[in-house]
Structures are given as C-alpha cells and as structure tokens.
C-alpha cells in the first residue's frame, strides 16, 4: 500500500472504485483507532463507532471527486475529517436532545406549514413579511427537493422532521441507531440545502 499510495489516491480521485475500496480498507481501521474513546460513555448505547465509520465510508464514496491528492497522508487526513464531522454531527444532536431541547421540529398543522418550517430550519428562507410570497414558492420547491433525496435520507426527514416522530421510533423503523439517524438527518439537510441552493440566489431569481 505504501508503495502505490499516491497512485491509488490519484486513481481513486479520478473515480476508480476499486482503488478507493483499497484505500478505505487500509486507512479505515486507522481512523477507527483514532476515534476510539471519542464517544462518551453515556452515548455508547445509542451511537457506536460502526455507525460513524459506515457513514464515513458512504461519504467517501459519494464525495471522492472532491478529494485532492496531495501527498501520502492526504487521504487519511481527508477520511479523518469526514469521520470527525459525522461524529460531531451525531454528538451535537444527542447532546441537544439530552438537554431537553428537542430539535426544532416541524409542527404539522398542515402539510404546507410543515414544509415552510422545514425551509426555515434548513435556512433557505426566513419568516419576514417581505418574504412571505417567496416562502410559498419555496414550499413547492421543497416538496420537489424532498423527492430528489435518496430514499434513506427522505425517510429520515419525513419521519423525524415532517411527521414529528421521536428518534427512537425512527430508529426502530429504519433499523438504525439513533446516532446514525442523526447523522443521516444532518446529511439529508445538507443535501436539501444543496438542492435548494443558495437562498438569496434562489429568491433573486
């Protein structure tokens, strides 16, 4: 691996799945080792390193095109940053839940209202009078964007954010740990933002 590290990285960045798998198999255990002990004891029942690593590997496959090879250690650094990001997402949400601050959830009075609130939550609109018309338009856009999400992402958003179901129930339904649900939810929100684009540009259209 050491001898062909640079070429593997270059090939992986150019879209070679096999090269990426090899890199992950080689560096994954190192990342896992570095993350060891980073999950507080109180969260270990709802979040494991496997959750974090699986999400990290998924992200690596999805975002490999963004990786820029730059030396032998660049890949493990990139992979480590993905893993840390996922771990922090999960811990942040778990911590917030523990403090009794339920995540801002969409209150389902009507389907339209919930969509609007979700728009605000992911930061693509604000409830100011001058943007009222844009909000209505954004509501329709959001519905379209939700359909564009991968099934696993859409189901988390639908159940947790729009249907306002507790994380335990979402976890049971999706057969994922609560920590994993939170990581998927964070990814789903990012993806929604990407789909909806920059709010100002959208609204200026």
């Amino acid at each position, binding site marked *: 691996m050491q001898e062909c590290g640079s070429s593997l990285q270059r090939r992986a960045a150019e879209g070679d799945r096999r090269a990426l798998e090899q890199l992950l198999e080689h560096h994954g255990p190192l990342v896992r080792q570095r993350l060891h002990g980073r999950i507080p004891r109180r969260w270990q029942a709802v979040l494991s390193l496997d959750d974090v690593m*699986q999400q990290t590997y*998924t992200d690596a496959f*999805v975002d490999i095109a963004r990786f820029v090879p730059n030396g032998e250690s660049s890949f493990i650094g990139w992979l480590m940053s993905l893993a840390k990001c996922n771990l922090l997402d999960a811990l942040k949400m778990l911590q917030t839940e523990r403090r009794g601050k339920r995540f801002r959830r969409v209150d389902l009075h009507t389907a339209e209202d919930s969509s609007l609130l979700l728009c605000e939550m992911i930061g693509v609109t604000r409830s100011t009078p001058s943007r009222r018309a844009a909000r209505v338009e954004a509501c329709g*856009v959001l519905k379209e964007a939700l359909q564009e999400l*991968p099934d696993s992402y859409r189901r988390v958003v639908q159940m947790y954010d729009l249907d306002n179901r507790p994380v335990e129930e979402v*976890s049971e339904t999706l057969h994922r740990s609560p920590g994993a649900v939170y990581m998927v939810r964070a990814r789903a929100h990012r993806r929604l933002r990407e789909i909806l684009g920059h709010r100002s540009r959208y609204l200026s259209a």
Partner: protein
Amino acid sequence: MRKDRQTGNHPRQTGAPPENHRSMPGSERDLIRSAELEAEALLAHRTDDLPRADSIPGFRILGEVGRGGMGVVYKALQLSTNRTVALKVMLAGPFASPAARQRFKREVELAARFQHPAIVRVLESGETATGQPYYAMDYIHGMRLDRWLGGVSPGLPERLPVFLELCAAIEHAHRQGVIHRDLKPANILVDTEGHPHVLDFGLSKAIEQTDGWESLTLSNAGADHVMGTLAYLSPEQATGAVEEVDPRTDVYALGVMLYQSVTGSFPHDIHGSHTEVIRRICEDDPEPVRTLAPNVDSELETIVLKALQKEKGLRYRTAADLGDDLRRYLQGEPILARPNSSFYVIRKKLLKHRLQVTAVVVVAALIPLCLWGGVWWQDRVAQNERTHDYREARREVLAIQNDIEAGRVEYALGPAHALYDRYPDLAEAVLVWSQAQFRLGRRADGAEGWVDTAFKTLRTAIANDVAPHACRTLLDEMRGRIGIASAPDREPQSCTGLPDNAETSYLLSFATLDLDRAAALTENAVDLDPEHSLAWARLARLSLLTERPDRALRTSEEWLRFNARPAAGIMLRAKALVRHGEYREAVNLCTQAITASRRPVAAYRLRALAHLCLREYEESAADYSTVVEFDGTERIWGSYKRATALWALGRLDEAAADYRTVREIRGHPSFADARLFLVLSDQKRLAAEADIVLQEEASEVLRNAQRGAVRGGWLDRILSCLAGELPPAELVKSANLANPEQVCESYYYAAEACLLRGEIGEARDWFRKCVQTGVVLDPDSAQLDPMNEYHLARWRLDSLPTTEAEGATPSESHHPDLSTTRHATNTSR
C-alpha cells in the same frame, strides 16, 4: 443497514435482522461494502436531475466536483482532445429562472474574454439536450488558495510570488473591463506546481455595468459562506455604494488575502452580526501586521496596509501597482508605498472617534469656563455677602453708639470691640470702638489706659487710611477733652478735601463726643439726602438723647418709612413716646415690635418699663419674666427689675428670690444686697412679732455686703446708712452732685433708712426728692436703673400713710399697704 459487528443485530435490536440489513459484516470490508451500496443509491439519485454522462455532446462526465447555488461542476473528458475538463452546468428546475440564465451566460461571456495563464480558460459553452446551459473550462489539479496556504505551509518567499501572478491576472481582467468583485480564496485554485488560477466570475461585472452584485450584500443565509465573503468585502461594497466599485475594490480583496497569507488572520474580526462586521470593515483599522506576525518586514506591512486602505484613493490604483510593489519588495528594491503620515493617522482617528473627540473638546472648553464661572460666582457671592454684612454692621453700629452716648459704655464695649474686630476697615466701627474706649477711660477710676488705647486705635486707622479725616477729628476732640491740646481746631464739616454730602456728615456724627453736634451733623445728612435711612435712625436716637422727644417721634416715623427694620423703627418711636410720657401708646407700639422682631427682648423690656410707669406692676412683672428667659445679661437685669414690680405687688418672697439670684450671679456686693436687705426688712415688718429668722437674715445680708463692698465707696456708704451707722443726711451730703444718678440714689436710700428708723416724715421728704430727681435724672426711658429708685420712691409715697398718720410706729403703719399698691392711672412724671 448496518448491524452490530459481534451480534449481527442492530445494537438496540434483539430480534431477527431486518430485510434491508446485510447479513453479517464481520469486518471493516463489510462496512465498506455496505457503504458503497448506499453511496451508489445516493449517487444515482444525485445525478437524476443532471444530464447523463453522454448527454453533453463532445464530453463524458466522470464525476461531480462541486455544487453551488447556480450549478454543478463536473469533471469530464473532452472527447475531441481527450483532456480532462471542468464542466459547469446550470441547475435545472426552479433555479433556471431567466435572470439566473442571463447571469450564467454573462459569466461565460466575461470569462471568454480572458487569455491569461492565471485565469481559468473557458473552452467551450452550449446547452445540454434538456436546455441547461453549460460551459467547459480548464480542469485544475489543485486546491483552494486558503487550503494551499494552510496545508502546504509554504514560506513567505513561496507565497508572495503567487500573489504576483494573481495581481497580474486581476490586472488582465481589469484591462478587459471586468471587475471580479468576489475575489476570495475559494475562487482561486493553486495547482500542483504552485500557480494560481482565478475562477468564478459569476459575480463579476463589466466596468460599464452597474447591476448585479447587490444580491451579495443582501445575502444572509448560509452563514459560513456569507461571512467568508464578507471578510473580503471592501468598505465601498460593505456600505452598498455600488457606484464606488472599481478596480480598487479587487485590490482591497487582494489585500485581505495578502494579509491573511502573512498573518493567518483576517484584517477584521468577522464574528458577530453582519452589521457589526460591516461596521468594523468600514471604520476599524486592521490590526497592524507586525503585531500578529512580528517577523514580517515593515515594508511588506506597508504594502499590505496600503492595499487595505479604507479610502480608495489611498489604495494602489491598480492590481498591477500592487504586484509591482510586491515584486520590488521581493527583489529588495525600494517600494513605492509609504506608511500613512502622522497627520493622516491623527485625522482618521479623530474622524473615527469624532463623537468622543467632540465631547472631549467641549469638556476641555467647559472646564476652564466652569472654573472661571465658579470663581466669578464665588467672588460675587462673597462680595454680596460682604456688602450685606457691611450693611448689617452699619446698622449694628447705630445701636452700639446709642448705648455709648446714653452712658451705657460698659454694655457697648463688648459689641463695639467685636464689630471692630470683624470690620477694621469700617469707619463707623473704628470710631465707635474708639469712643467706647475713651468714654470708659474717662468714666472709671484707674481705667485711664483705655484712653491711650482709643488714641492708638484711631492712629492705626489713620495709618491704614480708614476714614483718616473722621478719625483725626475725633482724635483732636479727645485730646481737647483731656487737655492734651486745645479744643479741636477743626470743625468736622470743614474737613478739607471731603465731599459735602450726606454720607460725610453722617460719618462725622460718629467723630464727635458732643451729642448736640452729632445730632446737627446727622440732621444735615438727612437734609442732604432724605433717603439716608441710617441717618434717620441715628437722628431719632440722638433726638431722644438730646431731650427732643418731638423730633424723635418725627424722625422715627421717617425711619419707619424705609421699612428697613420695622421693629427697630417701632421701638425707637415707642421710646420717644415713653420719653414723651405717652406710656399707653408706647405699650401698644411695643406689642407691635414684639410681633415684628426676631429677638423681641428689647420690646418686652420697654413694655415692662411702660407698665411700671403706669403702675401696672402685674403686667410689668409678666414682661420682665419673659425678659429673664433670654440669655446673657438679660437674666440679671430682668430679675433685678422684676423684683421692683414684685416688691410693689407685695410678693416679697419672689422679690427676695430675684435679688438673691442677682447676688449669686454677680458674686460680689451690689445694690441687690441693699434691696434684699430692705425686702427682708419689709417681710419682717409684715410678719408676726419679731420674726427673728428674717431679722437675722437681713442683718447677715447687710453685714456680708458691708464686708465685701469697697470701703469708703458709694455702696459702702449706702449700706452703712441702712445699718444705722451713717445718718441719712450724711449719705445725701456725700453724694457726688456731678453724678445725678448718685444724687437720686442718695435720696432713696436715705428715705429707706429713715423708714427703718420709723422717721416717716423725713422718709417722705427724701422719697419726694427722689421722685423729683428721678424724673429729672431719667434722660432716656431706656436707662432703667435710675428709674428703679424713682419707681420705688413713688410706690413708697403711694403707700405711706397720710400726714395725719405720721408718728405711727413703723411696724404698724410705715410698711407699704400691699393691697393698695396698684394704681392703674396713667400718671405722667
């Protein structure tokens, strides 16, 4: 989709694995495989809305590189050249609004103008099969500028050449008429060989255009993006001054990146609200480069700070100028930029803190003004107070001088000295104090030293130029009185160099020992100035002293006209009335004065006297009882005089108590001893036969008084007469005829001695003479002492049996008939 590595189940599940769970990962490889499957699903979804890999003619999409609000950038293969390119495809759906499409096309057009190695070239543009616009550009193998700076960590010598190339690229764009307006590390890629490439002219504008970039400043979503952008905004962009944007705006952004590359920090803190960040960008000076990076050269700091000037005019005019100075710096040549001048720095600081500076200037101007105002005000207050004090002092002088001229020098001495002590520059105070000293020295045996003191006081005043003319006049007169020199050879009115006005005459009235002359001078003063209230007051007093009660009544009325001191005016008039024998009217005026005065003791005293003259002993005793409540000498004299009224009322115990009080307070023999002896004798006469106790007490009082009295003195002779050791006729003969008070007293005590011997006829004769001399001797109703003997003699005459009863034993008929002592008749003297 993931299961527990040991159990094969979800960590929180114990039942059968769900169908979408993969069976048994067992190793990291299983996790990776599971993730790959999920990623495929995600990627499949992600590309659903994008052209298929071969949907763009001439290109094969290899993967997604990045995604923005406007479009997605793919890595693609240009089939014709077999080279890797970046394909930017505009997003479909709601983002493909006409304005967005227009903006996308403009970006293509602007980017196509450039032919510069540091600007990403646009290779081709067109529309996908679904109508989405796209363009192909160079694919740069590299990383963002900030990551390159932070990740590769090149030294400053390697970093600065990158900026040289950047400056050249931006200068090229400017020469093509394009301002980037959104220069930031995210829009600059550094390739693997360390060369920068500027991209994303999405927000740039042709110099002739004015629309477009407002959306950037209005943007407030996606905090990281906006804050990152804000950090590179120039002040003119931050304030929304669109018309101000020009090539120097890009120079500012280059300056920010240069600052960041040198120090590792932004020039301004970008935390906080947008408003606050914008304020900092527009107002705060950047932290000096060398504060954050001490090893940086001062010339480089100058270059960076010049690029970051808030005023466009002070920045580098073009990116080329900035690049040129950087080149000079790198080559060790003198740079063109110069640090800000001190004047500029001060001016900027003053402008920045103009509110505080204005406040400081105002305060600085106000402080001396306030100090001056405070001093002026204090001076004015002090002056007013002093003026007021002087006015009060001049009024005080009148009362003191009146006491002196009425013969009560011993009472006037203390106040006169206190006044002189306080106002040594007040002419009247000097004259009055000198008069008090001189008269005391002339009056009492062994007190001649006071005369010298008086001369000394006057000489001091002359030396100090305090009314020298008046002082010299008084000095001359005093010398004349004691025979040092002839009588004053200068009349006060003829003092040379003195203005002939009311004030001069008034002042000179204090510079004479002659009451008639003083009265004449005062009369002249009121003739010259009828509004001279002090002169009227002095004239009223002098009129009383010079036996002119009519004039006293008139002048006191004039004084009352000024209403300056109504109580004093009323009192003067009341005294004049007493002197005129109009006691009832005097009582009424005294009652008014009591109401008007703040310290009505004098009014009570005068009313008590008027009551005594009216033989209203009860009312008199009541008023004197009020007088003794006041402090000081009032207690002694009030008690002494109240005893007269009580004696006349037959309240002998109370009268004796009053005389005892006076004896105790004085501590040495006085007329109170003689009076006490007489009251005790009366008590003895009224008491049962031969009251041994009273007799012994009376004898004891008399013996003690005789022992304490000055041997051969006037009191000693009176006491001897009362003790039967000196015949009454001898007492009368021994009286000093020049002293009318002594004459009156000799008659009274001779009469009392006769009463004690039972010689009623002789007693009546002496009492009559006492009454006659008491009337003559009473020059001023305010002089109460002589009147005491007068009143007692009159009361005795009223009480003594008629001529037919003469010869009766004293114990039976010579004591006063207490039941008939009160006479309500308004008897004039």
